[in-house]
């Protein structure tokens, strides 16, 4: 099923989650390579252009993700979560959704204010206009720093988020991770049963 239910995530949410996850990790890696490592200047130029095209893709998907999150129901939190865990998870998920938008927006600002004025030619198909911001070396430095810092914060939250998912999967042995892999309510079949023995314990939280 495409849509979320009380018990689990729908295909749309799951597909968005993993697509955005892969894009974010790939973009951070490319960003690191093109900015922090000495590489061939021609390759560096190309990496920048790919980074921009994939970055705009991430921005579009993140915007859709945000809308989807606003209109869709979120599955109930896993009963295995305590109130503090629930709050921490929710804060992390909200932050990730916001950062998935802010990081590419700040990257768009870098491109827009740069005195190099290199066009954003999305996958060599269409020109994405620059944001209407004044160009200057100072603002380019500011936005480049903001873009990098936001990206590193995102990476840190992703690490926490992933560690929590593995913790639930491997230690708590609940369905938190599983339900972001398979759509539908995930009842008993799924394995991971809880220690408590209630076999429908099931769904865990990964809210959003």
């Amino acid at each position: 099923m495409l849509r979320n239910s009380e018990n689990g995530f729908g295909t749309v949410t799951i597909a968005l989650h993993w697509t955005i996850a892969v894009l974010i990790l790939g973009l951070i890696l490319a960003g690191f390579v093109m900015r922090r490592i000495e590489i061939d200047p021609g390759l560096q130029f190309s990496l920048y252009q790919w980074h921009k095209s994939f970055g705009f893709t991430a921005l579009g998907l993140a915007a859709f993700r945000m809308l989807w999150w606003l209109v869709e129901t979120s599955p109930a939190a896993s009963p295995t979560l305590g109130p503090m865990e629930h709050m921490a998870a929710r804060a992390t998920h909200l932050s990730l959704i916001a950062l998935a938008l802010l990081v590419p927006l700040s990257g768009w600002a870098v491109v827009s204010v740069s005195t190099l004025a290199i066009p954003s030619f999305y996958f060599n198909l269409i020109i994405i206009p620059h944001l209407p911001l004044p160009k200057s070396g100072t603002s380019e430095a500011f936005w480049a720093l903001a873009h990098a810092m936001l990206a590193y914060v995102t990476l840190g939250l992703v690490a926490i988020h992933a560690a929590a998912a593995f913790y639930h999967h491997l230690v708590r042995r609940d369905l938190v991770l599983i339900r972001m892999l398979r759509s539908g309510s995930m009842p008993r079949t799924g394995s991971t049963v809880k220690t408590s023995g209630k076999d429908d314990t099931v769904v865990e939280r990964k809210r959003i």
Partner: protein
Amino acid sequence: MTSSGKQSMAVTLPLSLLALALAGTPVAGAKAPALADAAGTYRIASSSRIQFSVGQVGGSGGIAGSFTKFSGIFRIDGDDVGRSSVEFTLFPESVRSTERRIEDFLRSSAVFDAANHRTVTFRSTGVSQTGPDAATIEGVLTARGKSRKERFDVRLTDWNRRSISFTIRGSIRRSPYGMTVGTPIYSNVVEFDMNIRGQKR
């Protein structure tokens, strides 16, 4: 991005142009020199200007720059303009653009690879007059170790007994010289716009 340099040119100046001038078409208001005065060998003066530009997708903008270090000699054949010749050398290390990052990129291995290819040269193979004050120069342009035949349009703008000036224009495709970086955001075609002054030797 860009290009190749190229350049060169020069020379050509059809004596016949001069002849026309003599005939009374006042070019540049100079007093008409004797043909014998125009024929000769000239050194390309450092006051010449070698500018280039590369368009970008969407129209406005692009890369523009110039070269400040170059040298060359041309000879105008008094008996047969078509036998005139030019040799021109350009040092890509001297490229100037709107900002340092662009200049460094142009010098880098992505474009001119100035560290390994210190010069861009043009050696004419033929000159043909195309109008009273215009000619076309064909020759071999060598950049990044690759040589190709290229063509430039030359127009006489001024002369006197000691010096002569031309504007020279040419559109050079950069990809054959291994300078494909930045396409298709930046055009494959580099437009050269030069003002060449020759000092008679």
